[in-house]
Structures are given as structure tokens and as C-alpha cells.
């Protein structure tokens, strides 16, 4: 019966698909391609109401095969993509985008630009939400390419400017690119999302034309709008912008403070700490100690000699001046039950000594102050240092011995 026939057809379609899948997962591109030519028949009777229909499957599988097949060429790929675009209206923009991505990754920027322009002018009835998003992305990528053209023209102009003459046509063209790029980039960064490159490019454009207020507004929006994800880069861009603008320390610190609250382990925390240590205000120096302690809590900072030297410097300062020992005490309180095992074990002492002497020096000093001269880490490193007759380590031993009482005050 016809029903049975339909079932059989479905079954053989599924079997074919599983063969293709198997071949793809084993990187047997030729075998997959042969099966795919058979699978194309499944388009004939596409009764499926599944999430991904046969036409999308063919697009996906075909693309994958053409990426890896030893005998495929860019021309063939483009040809295949053009065919795929006509297969389904709903997927048109998506296929266009992927095509553009492939062209971009292969360095065919001009073709990509053409494709983007074509896709942008495509209209078909009412757009779904997803198509709307895809269209915005297409425009944004076109804006990005316009930006790169602009920056190219800008470089040419700058080089010419050095030589002492300017080309009006080039300048005109550059301004044209600016307008096209700015319009598209401005649109996408209004929508919640992660738009790092688009924001960066747009700010660069604005800064070049001196529109600092707009740039600041864009960056503030990107960093502080609660509809956007908590992207550390948004804060980094803002901080860098403020730095470029030579803003007062205060605003830099407040920008970094927020970054510290979101990501205490960010690499900018070292800059933040140095900035705070230099401050005259007690409160800020206190914050600096907090920041560096918090950064060293993270596994990624465990062997960061720079961070340890920051901590050493500040701890040393506090111990020598004998003021604000309570700061250390407070920080140490929530860490004394696990820092010794995490940072100051004998095993780590051995390893740090072997791998990075200056790191072990910094850590030994902190360990000696925080845990007293009986601490395993300090004992091992100072012993090794004295054995190796390093002056620095002898000084270290002396320093810790002199300030051994601090440890009692902190832990008491």
C-alpha cells in the first residue's frame, strides 16, 4: 500500500542519514558525499514536519563536506550555497550569513561584502523574529566591513598626510564609509547582546571624529545597561576609553571598582591595586589590599609573580609601618583555613623554588608574615635560599624573624 511505501521510504531515508552521519563523524568525506547524493532524493517527498527538514540537512551536511573534502574549491562551495539559498525561504538569511562567514574566513572580503549587500536587499513577506535578528546581524557585519574599508582609507590618508599632501577623493570615500558603517553598527549595539567588535569599531569611529560624548554614552550603555549580560569587556573598554581621555583617577578607580565587583580575578586588578596603593587615602589603600587578596584566591593567579609581589609590597609596607595590621587580620580571617593548603604547602614550596625563584621569594615573605617563621613554605624556601647563598633570601629570613610577632597579632 502507499502507506507502507511511505514508511519504507522514510526508513531508508533514515538509514541513509545515519550512514552519512557515521561517515562524517569518522571524517570519511568522500563516503559521506556519495551517500548525500542519494539522500538528495528525500527532497522529493518531504512530508516531514520535523524541526530540521531534509533541505536544511542537505545544506548542513553539504557544507560540512565541502569544507573538508580534498577536492572541493571555493567556487564549488559558492555554487552550492547559491542553490541552498533557493531551497528554503525561511533559511535564506541564515545560509547567506554562513556563506559570508566562510568567505570572510577565507579572506574573500569583497565577495563577502557583495553577498551581504545582496542579502540586505532581500525581502520576502513578513519577517519572523529570528529573520529580523539575522537581518540585523547581516547589516552589522556589513557595517564592520565598511569600518575596515574606512580604516584602510584612514591609514592611506595618514601616510599621505605625513608626506604632506592629501587626496580629497580618498577623504570623501572615507567619510562615505564612515557614514555607512556608523549607521549599521549603531543599530546592532542597541540590542542586548555581546557586541565586542562592533562596539570597539563604533567607538573608534566616533573618537576619530571627535564625538567623545556619544562614545562615552555608548560605552556606558554597553557596560551598565542591565539588559546586557555582565560582560567584563564592556568595563574594560570603558576603562580604556577613560584612560585615553585622561580622565581623573577617581573615575578610573570607580570604573575598575565595578569590574572588581563583577570579576575579582580580572587581569586589570593588578593595575587597580597599584593605582590604589599609590593613593593617599586610607580607604583606597585598604581596598587595594582587598583587591589583591581576592585576586590571589583564584586558581588562575596561583603562580602569578606580579600579583604576589603586589601583595608582598603592601604587606611589607603595613608591617613595617606597624599601622593597619587589622586590615591584614581581617583579610586573613576568611582565608586562614584554606590558604595554607592552597598556597603554602611544602610541595608548592619545592615546586615554586624549582620553577620560579622570585615567585617563591614573594610567597615566602607573605607566608612568613601570615603564618610565622614556623610555616613550612617559609622554612623550605628560606633554607634553600640561604643554602644557595642568595642575599635576598637571607634578608627575607631576617625580616620575617624580626616581625614574627605580627603573625600572633593577626591570628589572635
Amino acid at each position, binding site marked *: 500500500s502507499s502507506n507502507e511505501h511511505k514508511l519504507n521510504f522514510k526508513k531508508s531515508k533514515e538509514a541513509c542519514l545515519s550512514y552519512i552521519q557515521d561517515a*562524517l563523524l569518522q571524517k570519511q568525506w*568522500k563516503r559521506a558525499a556519495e551517500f548525500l547524493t542519494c539522500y538528495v532524493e528525500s527532497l522529493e517527498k518531504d512530508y516531514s514536519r520535523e524541526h*530540521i527538514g531534509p533541505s536544511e540537512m542537505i545544506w548542513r551536511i553539504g*557544507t560540512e563536506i565541502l569544507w573538508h573534502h580534498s577536492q572541493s574549491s571555493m567556487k564549488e562551495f559558492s555554487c552550492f550555497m547559491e542553490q541552498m539559498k533557493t531551497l528554503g525561504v525561511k533559511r535564506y538569511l541564515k545560509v547567506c550569513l*554562513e556563506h559570508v562567514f566562510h568567505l570572510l574566513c577565507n579572506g574573500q572580503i569583497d565577495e563577502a561584502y557583495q553577498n551581504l549587500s545582496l542579502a540586505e536587499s532581500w525581502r520576502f513577506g513578513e519577517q519572523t523574529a529570528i529573520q529580523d535578528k539575522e537581518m540585523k546581524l547581516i547589516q552589522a557585519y556589513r557595517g564592520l566591513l565598511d569600518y*575596515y574599508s574606512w580604516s584602510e582609507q584612514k591609514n592611506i590618508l595618514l601616510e599621505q598626510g605625513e608626506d604632506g599632501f592629501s587626496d580629497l577623493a580618498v577623504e570623501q570615500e572615507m567619510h562615505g564609509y564612515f557614514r555607512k558603517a556608523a549607521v549599521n553598527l549603531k543599530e546592532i549595539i542597541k540590542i542586548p547582546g555581546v*557586541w*565586542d567588535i562592533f562596539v570597539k569599531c563604533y567607538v573608534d569611529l566616533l573618537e576619530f571624529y571627535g564625538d567623545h560624548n556619544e562614545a562615552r554614552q555608548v560605552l556606558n550603555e554597553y557596560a551598565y545597561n542591565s539588559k546586557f549580560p555582565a560582560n567584563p569587556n564592556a568595563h574594560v573598554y570603558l576603562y580604556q576609553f577613560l584612560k585615553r581621555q585622561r580622565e581623573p583617577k577617581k573615575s578610573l578607580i570607580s570604573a575598575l571598582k565595578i569590574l572588581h565587583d563583577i570579576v575579582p580575578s580580572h587581569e586589570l586588578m593588578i593595575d587597580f591595586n597599584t593605582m590604589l596603593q599609590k593613593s593617599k587615602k586610607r580607604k583606597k589603600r585598604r581596598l587595594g589590599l582587598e583587591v589583591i587578596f581576592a585576586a590571589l584566591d583564584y586558581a*588562575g593567579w596561583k603562580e602569578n609573580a606580579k600579583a604576589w609581589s603586589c601583595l608582598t609590597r603592601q604587606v611589607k609596607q603595613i608591617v613595617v609601618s606597624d599601622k593597619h595590621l587589622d586590615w591584614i587580620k581581617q583579610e586573613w580571617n576568611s582565608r586562614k583555613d584554606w590558604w595554607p593548603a592552597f598556597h603554602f604547602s611544602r610541595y608548592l614550596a619545592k615546586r615554586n623554588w624549582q620553577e620560579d625563584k622570585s615567585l617563591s621569594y614573594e610567597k615566602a615573605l607573605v607566608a612568613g608574615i601570615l603564618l610565622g617563621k614556623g610555616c613550612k613554605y617559609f622554612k623550605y624556601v628560606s633554607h634553600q635560599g640561604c643554602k644557595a647563598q642568595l642575599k635576598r633570601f637571607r634578608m627575607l629570613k631576617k625580616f620575617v624573624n624580626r616581625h614574627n610577632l605580627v603573625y600572633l597579632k593577626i591570628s589572635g
Partner: protein
Amino acid sequence: MEFPAALFPSYFGVGPPQEEGGPAPVAGWGEHGQVLEGGSGRRQVQPAFVPRRGATGERWEAADAAAVPLLLPRAGCWIPSPAPQDILYRSGLCRKLRAGKSRATLDFARQLGHFFVDHPEDAFGSLGRLLHKNFHLGNSKLQRPARSSTIRMTALVEDIDRLEARRGCPRQHLASRLRWFSHLCRDWLFEVPLGLLADCLHEELMQQWSNLLFDDSLTGGALAWLPPEDGGTPVGCLVHPGGQAMNHLYFQDVVLEELPRTRGSPAQFELSGRVQQVAAARVDGQDFVGVRSDYHCGVWRVLGKRGAAPTPLQVIRTDVPASSLTVSPHVPGELSVCTQSGTVYLWSVETGLQQLRHDPQTMFFRDHSPWRWSDFTAHPRVLSCADRTGLQCLDARAPKRCHFDLFKVGKEAGCQQGERVVLPMYLGRAHPSQYLVTTQFSVYVLDERLPLVPVLKWAHMMKAPPLFAHLMPGKPGRSHKVLLGASRTQELLLLQYRGKTSSFRGGSQSACQLAGTPQKLHNIAGCLQHLPTQLPHHHHLLQQRLTAPAAGLAATLQEDGPRKSMLIFQLSEAGDVFCQRLTHKAAQPPAPPSRDEATTAPGSSPLFEAPASSPQGLGATALRYRRWLRALSRVCKEPPRHAWPFSLSQRRLFTRRDLEGPPGPSNLQRQMRQWLRQTMEEGGRIQHWETLALQPPPLPQTLEPAGGPDPLSARLTAAWAGDWEQWWEERTSFSVAQRRQALRERRRQQKRAQGRRSLSASFTSSLTYQSELSELSDTGPSLFSPGRPPILSQEGSPPAGSSPVGSPVTSAAPDEALLSSQSLRCRGIPKERRKTLRDYLSVWAECPPEPPEPPGSQASELCFPSSQSQLSASQPLRKRPRMGF
């Protein structure tokens, strides 16, 4: 660790997942996702773009055509877990009924029946004992006085049989007798009230069924690899469970060679529950191994030096089953434990348990699954905890106040409807702040510095949800490898991802990219097609064993100068550990049509064929397989002793027909039937049974006529010539005649010696002798054949046609029954003659001498030359059947 300077663009939305969908077979192919300008900066004229997916990765190729067994199967056959056909109702009627609705129907009645048959004592014990006189199980008619108080069960049993035979027939009428009986005794017959029992059984069935659909207790996997020390000898340690109930924990040293091999015998621990998960982490040069079973969690420490015995450190017991156990990669002796009720603990060997959260509700939306998970993060005091709806991070110092959402099943991560978290894993060894989350559809990489937005997402297209994952961090500039493993389908998938751009930019952090295409690896079942052809039932056993669900996954990278290889171990629920090697191929721009396309095509089996590339490797592989197969057949063919709880009543009931008086079948036939039945019960094989069954009694060595050629060579010569049987006939008739002669000779001597004995006594005794002798010579062979068939095809059993002289060991044991004073007494042989007869028989059978008679029996026999024993001799001793069904 630096944060990437720019991330791939993506939209961000809040709320429940919108995208409809489901498992899509090819959703992961053909997409770059997004691109990012990540090339060489402003120097070049054109910007260079990198894709989120589709960048070239490293090339890894399988060294062998299939995974190779690492360990030999251990004694004690594996008991397969129930399959769908075990608990589902299947019949034509039901299938028709089910066509409309998709729900599976559990075969409740059959399971209840199994319970009654397997545990009759628990089901009906007391009433059965009380009433057993009132039930008659024979075929004979009941006598008058008994009829008033006894029910004949035979008819009832026949009705049941008939019902069974008509199962699935739409027009079956319940026998009124059965209905009447069940109506009558339903309320009082059962030990456990039927309703209660049914409830419990139903609950258990539902549990089993949901486990069959998706068993999350294995999440995380029960296999761990403790890598060798840096720069030390290439000997690692594999931690895996084993034993029939998977309740033994083994620490097995493994030498990493071309084909990894075990070294020495493993350290072994017997635990009080099935091992569900083994987790390990190396801190400060020591390995900490956490082991989770349902109600117990334990932690072991293994020192970095191989050969040191693992030390058990601590065990905790939980009231509700634990669902996750992870070992801290930061602080030695710290673990995190999660129980099904939603309690998360930080467990420190030194300070004990610290409860961080107790919340039976799921985090982001309501989900019925009690599964919970927890793991460590970049901060040693911040733990992640997960349920099916997402992940949260808790600060152990202030768990109530300090927490943030790391992952949510929702629009934030672009999830599909119905998507659920299956396995989260901290990727600390690759990048301190990255996290892997797998769902049944996709795999996500998250960065805890940018929560909720996955830095990488890919549809993995696996047929079963990935329950196991393993990370192999790559050195700077190289990709990290993640292995995903599913349980039921044994799928193994290798993914590569990169978090750093290649070294030309100074190795600065860049956004996460998926590198290369995902790669399917060999699974355990895949070797089946390469194995030599087996006997059908053997093949079935093997198939069952090899397709057992996977239970764990471990892997290691091995760098031997320029040669890099990857070793992957996979554990199955049957306790088998298989391993495979992948070798790294240096990047060749467009790969030429690869060799493996031809060799790994289905049908071919290069495993057992003469290898071309590496002779010693493949030869060793084949050898490994042979040894494994041999060990498996040895282990599995061992006749299961007391495999079923033996119960007298049940046996009587089901062998009722055999209890009927045998008018027809002869002695031999009966015995053959019995053997056949026994062999079938034991699942053995019948082989050469005429030769062995009809095998005449072994040769009496003592009566050998001197002077002739030695009997063995004579027989061998005869066998060689082909007329062995005839030779044997002659031989036996000759020896019987000769024995008679010898016996007469001896009796004459005895008579001469005991002249004072009465004539009558001598006469009767000789008469008995004669009759016994004739009986013996008539049915001699069958009487002397072993009660247990020696014909079970065992690996260790002598080959067919081996000399009967060699077999008295097998035939000796049952003869004891014949020679025992009991049986002789039963035959009514006077005591004084018994000794002589026994001597004679022992010569005949060459059996070991019988233990001396207990003096008690001797005495009683003397006092009561009982008529009872005479009676019982005439009819075989038969116990009265007890009621039980």
C-alpha cells in the same frame, strides 16, 4: 588568566527557552556560528577572520580497528541488568492497544508471578506449611476420608498451564475454577497482603523502567585514570569497579606501551554497595580518589609514586542516595558531595562535612528529577551546584548570601525547549575559569567571569545524553580535547577546542573556538564485527557482554618525543575495560584520501589479519583478543551453582509429571532424560554423549591378565584401526567372565576358610550374590555412569573420546551412593555380606574406598533388621510433595 579581548558576537535574551525542537540528527554540522576579527591586527591590508566553529584542529587517527580489552574478565559471571523486554508487556493484543498511545505497558502480572515462584517461602510460607496436608498434587484419585479436607491441585495447575498457552488470545475465558480459587484465597493466602505487595512491586517496576529510559546514577562515570608522575616511568593507575555487583574497587597499575598492559595484581577493596562513580584529582603530587555508591561515599589517597598502596581516608554515609561526588583540584582532601534531596556539602577529610545548601526545589523552574550535582570552580571556596535546570555558584563562606547563576536552561544560552542539564564539569586543568555543561542536545563551554552566556555552544548530535566527559588539556598553542561518552549507546565523541590564538601573537587569550570536526571513536561493542565467528549461543553471550551500557571513561595524552598519542579507556557495566590508541598526525593541509576510509569500512576486519604497518602491534592486539575471549568463555561457562534459590516445593510442583510411576521408559532412557534436563538447566552443551554415556565401566586394573600387551597401547592400536568398539565389547565380556571366575575362586577359598559357618547362611548369601551379580551385569553401564553428566562442554574437561581410564575421577563420586551402607542396606543385603560386595564393587569400579560406616547405624541395623528398609528398597525413597506455587 586574561580575559579574551573580544568575544564572538551574540544576542542575549532573558526568559524561558523559545526555540522549539528536539533531537536533530545533523544540527551540529555546517555552521561557523559567528566570526571574529582575530588575525594579525592592523599590519595587513585586510582583516583576517576566525570562525567560532570550523577552524582546523589536530588530526588524530585510531591506531587499531577496534578497542582492545585491557583486563581479563574476572571470575563470577556478570548479571545483565534488565532489558526492556524483561519488564514490558508484549503480546499482539497489547501492541494493538498500544498503537494509539505511546506509553509502554509494564508486565506487572508476570513479575508478580516471578516473585511467587522465586520466593515461595516469602510469599506463602506460613499458610503453605499450615495447609500443605489439604492440598494434593498427585494425579491419583483421592481416597474417601481425605476427600472432604483435601483439594486436588492438579486440575488447577492444568488450568493455569492452559491459560499460559492461550496468552494473548483475545477470547480467553478465565477458567471458573481459577477464579473461584483466587476469590476464595486472595485475602488470606499471602504472607504480605496482596495490595501492599503489588504497590511495592509496581513502584519497583516503574523505577526499573525509568532507569532503563535514562539512568542518571552513573553520571560522571566509574573509571578514573591516575596519570604517571611527570618525567617518571610511564606507569599510571586505573581505578575501576568490578565484581558481580560492581562493589569491588580496584587500583590497577597500567604500563603505557604501544598496547597498554596491566602490571602486577591490583589493590582491591570490597565496598558495601555498587560503585556508581569514581572521581579523581591530583593535588600537591598526590591523587585523591572519591568513590560514590548510593548511600556511601569514600575517599582514598594514592601517593604519586606508583606501587604505593592506596590508603582509604574516610567514609561518609548518607540517608538519601548521593548523586554526585567531586574531588577538589585545589586543596588536598577536599570533596563536594550532593544528595538527591538537594543538599550540597563541602567535605573535608580534616574538618568533616559542611552543609552549603539544602533545597529540595530545583533552581530556575520546576523539574521533577531529584538529580543534583556539584563541582569546584576557579575559587577553592566557591562551589557550583547544578540540577536539571541550570547551575549556580555558591561561596562556601557565606552560601546563603553569595551566589550567582552560572548557567540557566533558557534564552540566555539559546537553549531549546525541553533541554536539561546532563553533566556539568569544571575544566580547570585547561583553563581555570572554564566550565563544561552538557545537555541531551548540546555541549556548552562557559566562563565563570561571563556567567549565563556560553562562550561556546555546539549541538553534539549524540543518540544518548552524554553522561561522561573527560578533559585532556592541551599545551599552550594546542587545542584542548574533550571526550564525551554516553552510557546506553556506548558512544564516544572527541571534541577539540581552543582558548588561545596560536603563538604568533604571543599566545594572548582569544575567544573560545571549536577546532576541527568532532570525531567518533571506537566503542566496546564495535569490536564484535571483527571477532571470529562464534557458535550462535556463544555469539549471543558475547554480544550481550559487549553491548552492556558504558559505565565510565578515562583518557590520557602521551607524548613520546615527536610522537603523540592518546589513550582512551572505556568501562562497561559488565566490568570490562577496553582501551584504544589514537595517534597524532602532523597537520597536512588538504588531507589525501585517508587510508582509514578503506580499512574501517564495515565488513572488513583488519584486526585479525596480517598487518601491514606495525606488525608487532596488531599481532599483540589479536593475541589480546584471543586471551580475553578464552578467559570470558571460561568465566561464563562455569556452571552456576545455586544460581537460583533452590526450593523443594517449587521443584516438586514443576516436575510433577516426573513423579508419576514410570511404566514405559527404561532405566537408561530415564537417565538420559535426566541428564538432558540437567544440562539444559545449567545452560550447558551436550557433546558426544553416546560414547561417554554408554561408556562401560572403567577397566579393573588388578584383574588384568599378565603377560599380554599393555592395555592402553592395545586399545590405542584398536582405536587407530577403527574397530575400537568391538575391541571394547570383547574386552568387557572377557573381563566379566574373568571376574566371575575370580570371584568363584575367592568364594571357594572363603568357604574353605570358614568351614564352621552354616550351610543355609552360605546358600542364601550366595543366592543374593548371584542375583546382584546378574543385575549388575545387565544394567552395569547405566549404574556406573555418573549421576552428573560429565558431558558439559567445559573448557577444562578432557577432550571427547579420551580414555575411560582417565575418567573414574568423574564417575567415582556418584558410585559412592551405590556403595554406601545405606543403599546396600536398602537392597536388603546382610551386613556381613556387604563388605564382600563392596570389595567386589570397588574393584569393579576402581573407586576410592568408602569411608567407614558410622557405628550408630551399625548398631541400629543390628537391633532392627527392619522391614522398613526392605520396603524402601523396593520403591525409591520419595518425599511427600509440599504445597507451594
